[in-house]
């Protein structure tokens, strides 16, 4: 005979071991909840890191890298310095400066590179039509960066003492030139270029060893010539050539007035969003710090890095706020599901509890035991969840942060502690106990409603938050949807009996026995309680909210892309003239095309006020064809009709004034953002009226294209681009193009995709939780239902009739949840877009409002109906395992 343990823990263990399989659901739920809560910040951090990395990677290194320009300090006392001055003094000062950058910025910062250049000066190249300018560069490491394809590396230069040269005439400076520059200038090894202080002789032609290396961006004219257009429209070829570092001593005068530049490449791939705040601060410190060059040397670093990081932080904050909004409701559903689960365990424990209470167990003892039971059930699952999350996505957060999600495991314990009724009621008499402690209920309900109203009031008084004011997760904004949902749910539950009563009277008149019975039962002995109603109402509202927010975000992105591109596609080039546009129009699939010029800073007068604007000149009819949404400003005769951007608030339609030599009349005033590339203040004039203005106008540089619906905008844009590129004058700047699809793809940054995924996950999670809710609640009512069904079967109800009676159990509540939840889900996005500026997130200029698309909403509601049906079937199938005959003989346990 084994002696069983009679200690309190031993007895408790026996008590816990008798829990059975139903208790398995809670740990599983806790595990999933903890896992999601632990993974969410990690996933969010990952998405934010992707966002930082992608954003910085997409930007030009010219604005991301830490780039400095200034001048080299050269001591005046020593006129002849050796190269060691550069290596020892300057190099070490710059190295030390880089070493002073703290981590994590230092980890993302590449080695510092620097060079010195003489001022740009005119060079005389034989047989060259264009003007040539160049500068001499000294880079200590230049030989590691290039491959000399012809000739030999230049040697050091000294101004006096060349062999075979007449006195006073300095010897030529040996230089190395890039193949691209050599071609542009038409020089080769051995050629001499006229330059001051001495002619240059080309001794080497080189190719960049790594053409994609960032140094060729920071020192672009060392890799290829820059072709510029001078004031008289002449072509200027600008380039740089390397001289030997040995020449430094002889060139100190020129270098002292030249420029020194240095740069540290930034590698976004090694950045983490977790360090964003530090990175921004450290980058700003670098920009204000000085490398401390000697002898009057100056070097100021500049970079858009801190601003770009700050902008990403704002976007991530907006995303976090939106996700918190969707998830706060989910937390409510989760707690409701936990409550249902805990209650089902408590029901199983009811006998033991009342027995222990009657034997003299105190209230604290009982609540403690139940809380402990829940703790034993859920804490291992919670810890396991944290462990899995840490294994799946490791991060460097501290042990406290890592373990914090496990606190979810405490919720069932707290609920058990709160919900355990320690009243050792000898026998519960339903006929004799008051159904609701109504005063307490009214007080609680009123306080929830008041709280929701207060949150709403605070939100509405705060109004639309400015882009930079949203930092982190706003608790008020996050809690409001849940509070509103609870308030709406309470209201619905108050109204529910009235509606049901009305339904009951109606079905009674119709005389359908099962409907009368079912509605009466739903009214008088509802099987499902507040927790179920709350879970369903909030669940439906989350699903609808996610759907609406999803369509709002995608509509906002599409709008933004459209505004950004200005048409189906946009091209920009040095010049886009009528013949090019005509050729583009010929392309199959292009339905319309227009080119316009933007002439900046043109003075004009409206309503007697002098103003300045960019004048946009476009063929009005062609512009109308591409952009039917723009007002028509066709010029016929008389005053020139113009369209004004809305920067001048006082100007109204019909106002008159002058532009150049022409009288103008304001035909319309529209938002500045509708025409890309035009700046913030512009005035649109028909091309036919351009001559009348008498203003020197720029050449057209922007083209907008309309593309047929069945055509591919990307390939058409590429074709159009080719046409325009081929027609560009020699040496003109590169043609850029973008189309709607590309702009949309660019706008879909990692955080946009992250939000979309989060919305889908929130919707799916709430559907799953609703399924569990219904199964739990219906299963909890199984004993009572089966007893009832047994009786009904005995009095002769058919299976079909029984099924109809059962449908009344869940049906009315599901319908109410559907109605209230849908309403809430539609109202919340409107509220959210009113208080949260989605521009932070989507970008663009226009304020984003809620977009409700009926089809997806109807689709998810149908999904909800399906879930209810499936859950009901599952629960009834579970319940049916108890045979009615057995239930009848079991008798009333009370």
């Amino acid at each position, binding site marked *: 005979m084994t002696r069983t343990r009679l200690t309190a823990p031993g*007895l408790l263990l026996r008590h816990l071991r008798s829990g059975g399989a139903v208790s398995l659901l809670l740990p599983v739920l806790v595990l999933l909840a903890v896992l999601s809560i632990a993974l969410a910040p990690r996933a969010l951090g990952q998405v934010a890191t992707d966002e930082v990395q992608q954003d910085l990677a997409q930007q030009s290194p010219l604005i991301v890298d830490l780039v400095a320009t200034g001048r080299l300090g050269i001591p005046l006392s020593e006129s002849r310095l050796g190269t060691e001055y550069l290596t020892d003094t300057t190099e070490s000062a710059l190295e030390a400066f880089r070493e002073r950058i703290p981590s994590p910025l230092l980890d993302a910062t590449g080695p510092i590179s620097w060079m010195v250049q003489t001022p740009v000066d005119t060079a005389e190249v034989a047989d060259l039509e264009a003007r040539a300018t160049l500068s001499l560069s000294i880079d200590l490491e230049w030989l590691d960066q290039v491959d000399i394809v012809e000739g030999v590396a230049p040697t050091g230069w000294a101004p006096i003492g060349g062999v075979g040269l007449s006195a006073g005439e300095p010897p030529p400076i040996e230089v190395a030139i890039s193949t691209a520059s050599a071609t542009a200038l038409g020089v080769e090894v051995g050629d001499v270029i006229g330059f001051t202080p001495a002619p240059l002789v080309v001794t080497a032609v080189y190719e960049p060893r790594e053409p994609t290396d960032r140094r060729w961006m920071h020192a672009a004219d060392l890799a290829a010539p820059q072709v510029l257009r001078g004031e008289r429209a002449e072509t200027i070829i600008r380039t740089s050539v390397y001289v030997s570092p040995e020449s430094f001593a002889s060139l100190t005068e020129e270098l002292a007035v030249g420029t020194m530049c240095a740069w540290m490449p930034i590698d976004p791939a090694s950045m983490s969003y977790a360090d964003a705040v530090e990175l921004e601060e450290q980058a700003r410190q670098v920009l204000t710090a000085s490398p401390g060059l000697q002898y009057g040397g100056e070097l100021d670093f500049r970079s858009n890095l801190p601003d770009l990081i700050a902008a990403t932080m704002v976007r991530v904050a907006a995303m976090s706020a939106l996700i918190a909004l969707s998830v706060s409701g989910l937390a409510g559903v989760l707690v409701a599901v936990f409550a249902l689960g805990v209650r089902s365990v408590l029901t199983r424990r009811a006998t033991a509890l009342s027995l222990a209470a009657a034997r*003299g167990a105190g209230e604290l003892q009982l609540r403690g035991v139940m809380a402990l039971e829940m703790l034993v059930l859920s804490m291992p699952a919670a810890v396991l969840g944290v462990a899995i999350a840490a294994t799946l996505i490791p991060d460097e957060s501290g042990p406290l942060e890592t373990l914090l999600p496990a606190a979810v495991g405490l919720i069932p314990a707290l609920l058990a502690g709160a919900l355990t009724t320690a009243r050792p009621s000898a026998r519960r008499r339903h006929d004799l106990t*008051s159904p609701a402690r109504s005063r307490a209920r009214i007080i609680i309900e009123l306080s929830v409603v008041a709280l929701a109203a207060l949150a709403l009031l605070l939100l509405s008084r705060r109004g639309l938050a400015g882009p930079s004011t949203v930092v982190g997760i706003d608790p008020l904004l996050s809690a409001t949807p849940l509070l509103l949902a609870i308030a709406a749910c309470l209201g619905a539950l108050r109204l529910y009996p009235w509606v049901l009563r009305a339904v009951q009277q109606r079905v009674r008149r119709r005389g359908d026995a099962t409907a009368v019975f079912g509605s009466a039962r739903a009214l008088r002995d509802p099987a499902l309680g507040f927790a179920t109603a709350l879970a369903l109402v909030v669940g439906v509202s989350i699903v609808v909210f996610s759907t609406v927010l999803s369509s709002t975000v995608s509509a906002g992105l599409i709008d933004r892309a459209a505004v950004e591109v200005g048409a189906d596609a946009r091209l920009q080039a040095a010049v886009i003239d009528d013949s090019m546009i005509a050729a583009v129009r010929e392309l199959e699939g292009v339905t319309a095309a227009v080119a316009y010029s933007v002439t900046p800073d043109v003075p004009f007068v409206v309503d007697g006020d002098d103003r300045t604007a960019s004048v946009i000149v476009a063929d009005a009819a062609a512009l109308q064809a591409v952009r039917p949404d723009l007002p028509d400003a066709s010029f016929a005769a008389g005053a020139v009709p113009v369209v004004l951007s809305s920067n001048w608030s006082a100007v109204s339609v019909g106002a008159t004034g002058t532009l150049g030599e022409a009288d103008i009349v304001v035909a319309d005033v529209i938002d500045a953002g509708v025409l890309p590339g035009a700046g913030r203040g512009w005035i649109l004039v028909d091309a036919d009226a351009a001559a009348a203005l008498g203003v020197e106008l720029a050449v057209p540089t922007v083209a907008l294209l309309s593309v047929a619906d069945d055509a591919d905008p990307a390939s058409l844009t590429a074709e159009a681009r080719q046409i325009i590129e081929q027609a560009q004058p020699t040496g003109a700047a590169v043609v850029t193009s973008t189309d709607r699809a590309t702009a949309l793809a660019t706008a879909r940054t990692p955080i946009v995709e992250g939000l979309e995924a989060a919305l889908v996950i929130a919707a799916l999670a709430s559907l799953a939780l609703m399924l569990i809710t219904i199964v739990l609640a219906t299963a909890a009512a199984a004993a009572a239902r089966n007893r009832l069904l047994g009786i009904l079967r005995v009095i002769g109800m058919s299976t079909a009739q029984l099924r109809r009676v059962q449908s009344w159990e869940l049906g009315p509540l599901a319908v109410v949840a559907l109605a209230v939840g849908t309403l809430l889900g539609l109202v919340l996005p409107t509220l959210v877009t009113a208080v949260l500026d989605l521009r932070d997130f989507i970008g663009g200029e226009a304020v984003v409002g809620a977009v409700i698309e009926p089809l997806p909403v109807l689709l998810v509601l149908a999904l909800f109906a399906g879930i209810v049906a499936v859950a009901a079937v599952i629960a009834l199938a579970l319940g049916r395992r108890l045979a009615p005959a057995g239930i009848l003989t079991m008798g009333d346990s009370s």
Partner: protein
Amino acid sequence: MMQIDCADLVRIFSAEGVEVQALQGLTLGVDRGELTAIVGASGSGKSTLLSILSGLDRPTAGRASVAGHDLLTMTARERTLFRRRTIGFVWQQTSRNLLPYLTAGENIAQSLAIARRPRAQRSRRVDDLLELLDIGELRDRRPPEMSGGQQQRVAIAVALANEPEVLFADEPTGSLDEANSQRVFDALRDVNERLGVTVLIVTHDSDVSTQVRRTVQIRDGRTSTEVLRSTRLDEHGTEHLHAREYAVLDKVGRMQLPQDYITRLAMRDRVRLELEEDHVQVHRADSEDER
């Protein structure tokens, strides 16, 4: 001093629009060490009385004390301690007496654990109790592995775990056959005699009620009659059980006539009382009285 002392006990259950007066001024006194049976029809209020006496329910009005504890003024904490130390009980359904997943020994130990008895004493106490009730072999068996009678005897052991002064039993033999009923009842009587515990049994089992010294009948929320039994030796030296039925007279002089007296004499509405030298006569109100 009386161990159980109730006077004018009233318990009203009120729900929306309904009021049920379960006890309507019940008066009952039980002395220390007494074994008393309370009988009454279903709905007469006997279970309500037991709930109040065992500290599970509160009376609406009146006076009630058990072992010196005033049941009307007790705080929740005192009530818990009262249940823990002063009383023990046995209900009809075994499911409400014992936890099915604990063995007999563990069920007793649980009571001890709730009362925070020192651990060292528990095993000994469990053995003592099992021995007292002669069910030592059940120590490691769980309730589903026992007969109904065995379960009830274990339940008595559990109820006695913390050495209560009063033991309440609500239909302890309700769902048992005759032999088992007798055994359970014997156990209760044994406990009463050996430990001196005051025992109050609620029952409608006539066999049980005839075996106790005092039976109190409850009708419509009041004690109506009492039967006192005693054994007397007659002149031949044989023992005779002697039972005498008394009606309960409350402080203001109200009493209930036994139902069968009333039906037999066809008494209705009112009766005529006649005071004699040492008793009161109750007469049917005849037609001539009506005039």
